[in-house]
């Protein structure tokens, strides 16, 4: 039982790592970024190129992930500059299709650069086995993912709700016109958040790399689940996304315990139920 839920929590936190950036960009630009999964995947490929088959230590993994996050973040700025910023004044659905097109380009570029073959990167030494907690065997990399998820959440929550730059971003998200009036540079704030969102995608790709298999389909594995998470939590709401990721984990655990013949189905049922109970997400829709 405990074991099941710890494993499901690993999945939940992995999904949260991906969903964090997604909810950030939704908070400021009101778009569901279809390209997020592809950039997550790009982060994973970049990290694998940086560290080879096996990271020397946990810090090498984290460092390489951050570097990949940085690169992907810069790419995000490029996308913002050449695509998203050009579509700000037209129907929001254009933005949706634009991100879909960017996703196709990104996936195509990954296939051309790294090929179609499957690759695998190992967890760093020390994280490749397991520990026993309360008499239950827990893989140590699971603990790493859960820790990473919680850490990313705490940092983001602090930045958004407590720091100056976060408040600035929130101000822009709430009212672009007002922030211009206040003399705050609106586009700069938007760029900041978009860059951060893409960087988070890249970072998540790197951190989850030793947990997954690298293939050009990796992005799809997470994208839909991340969508579901941020919708259950309330769009643009980072705390909501975190709670939703935990709910997702519980649902997944229940699925395994009580409905093993239909793996992954309860998540959809749960999501439909959640949406009907809380039409705007558990914590409500929020602009950051």
């Amino acid at each position: 039982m405990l074991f099941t839920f710890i494993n499901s929590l690993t999945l939940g936190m992995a999904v949260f790592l991906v969903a964090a950036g997604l909810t950030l960009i939704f908070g400021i630009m009101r778009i569901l970024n279809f390209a997020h999964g592809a950039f997550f995947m790009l982060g994973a490929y970049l990290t694998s190129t940086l560290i080879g088959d096996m990271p020397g230590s946990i810090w090498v993994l984290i460092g390489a992930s951050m570097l990949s996050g940085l690169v992907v973040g810069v790419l995000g700025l490029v996308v913002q500059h050449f695509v998203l910023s050009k579509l700000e004044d037209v129907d929001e659905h254009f933005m949706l299709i634009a991100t879909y097109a960017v996703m196709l380009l990104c996936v195509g570029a990954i296939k051309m650069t790294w090929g179609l073959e499957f690759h695998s990167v190992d967890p760093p030494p020390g994280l490749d086995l397991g520990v026993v907690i309360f008499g239950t065997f827990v893989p140590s990399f699971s603990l790493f993912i859960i820790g990473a998820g919680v850490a990313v959440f705490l940092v983001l929550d602090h930045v958004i709700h407590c720091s100056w730059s976060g408040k600035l971003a929130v101000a822009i998200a709430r009212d672009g016109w007002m922030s211009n009036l206040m003399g705050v540079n609106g586009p700069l704030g938007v760029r900041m958040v978009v860059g951060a969102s893409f960087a988070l995608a890249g970072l998540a790709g790197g951190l989850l790399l030793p947990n997954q298999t690298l293939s050009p389909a990796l992005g799809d594995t997470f994208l839909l689940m991340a969508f579901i998470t941020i919708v259950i939590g309330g769009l643009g709401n980072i705390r909501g996304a975190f709670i939703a990721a935990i709910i997702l984990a519980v649902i997944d655990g229940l699925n395994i315990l009580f409905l093993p013949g239909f793996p992954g189905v309860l998540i959809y049922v749960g999501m439909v139920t959640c949406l009907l109970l809380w039409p705007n997400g558990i914590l409500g829709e929020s602009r950051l």
Partner: protein
Amino acid sequence: MSSSLAERDSRRKPALTRPGINNTLIALATLTLLAMPFLTNSGLLYLVGTTLVLGVYSVGWNLLFSWAGLASFGSGGLFAIGAYVSAAAIRAGYDQFFLLIVLAGAGAGALVAMLVGLVALRRTTGIFFAILTLSLSELLRHTLMHTRSLGSEDGLSNITRPVLSLGVVEIDLTSGPTYYWFICVSAAVILGLCWWLTHGPFGRRLLAVRHDIERAGFIGIDVHRSRLAALVISGAVAGCAGAIYAPWAQIVTPELSGMVRSTQPILFTLLGGLQSFWGPMIGAFVFMVIEYATRTLVGIQEIITGAILLAVILAFRAGIAGSWNALIDRLTERRADK
């Protein structure tokens, strides 16, 4: 004063007007489509037939989107329902009642859309509605994949094309061209109905709802009912298109309910032109041409499709229909100025 203005207007009116040009184009396109079986091989004919069906399906989706302001990401599910109804009925040997089967497909799509709408529309809108419909169609896909009697993930294949029995006459639809013409006629009927609905009082009501839902309530429109009606009609069109599609492709698979099918109308509509009746149809055919022209460039399909989409979206924000109309307006104005 206003009358003199009108006079001046009529004097300035160019010989070629936009509606005139566009109607001529629509007539030409219709003739070309009807003559298709004489012009191409069966591969291209199949592609054009499929595109027609998908175009009709997308026009139905756009009725919900551009008129009622609801973006559904689960229309593929409704298409799949129609297709499976039609496939199962034909395989069970009811193919002489094919027209009834198509109606049943439309009915099934409408019914499911209504059930979803009754539960969902009161509570969710916007992106939540989009994600809800997306999940529901994914759920349907999972269910189809696990239903042995519906062929699991391989779907139902070997669907024969029917011989229509209309009491006294029998129309043989088993050959490619005849079924293609059947698609043309059905498309014309469905599009005609949609055109009628969107351009009459119902369409005006929906446009009011889309633009300002609260204000629409304040002129006495039952907003909820109007949107539900739009959802049901759109579901009927999707189901109907699915039912027509099944014997054309002769196979139906759970992937019909997948993301790809559900995002198709969105792509077509944005490409072809938002808030334009013919936009989705234009988008469908432009997409078809792009895909057909690049069919030999295998292995880099994502990059080609992505680049073209991006270019179109950045260059023609009004979609192809919007940009075309703007162009014609400019040209005719210039002529008039001379």
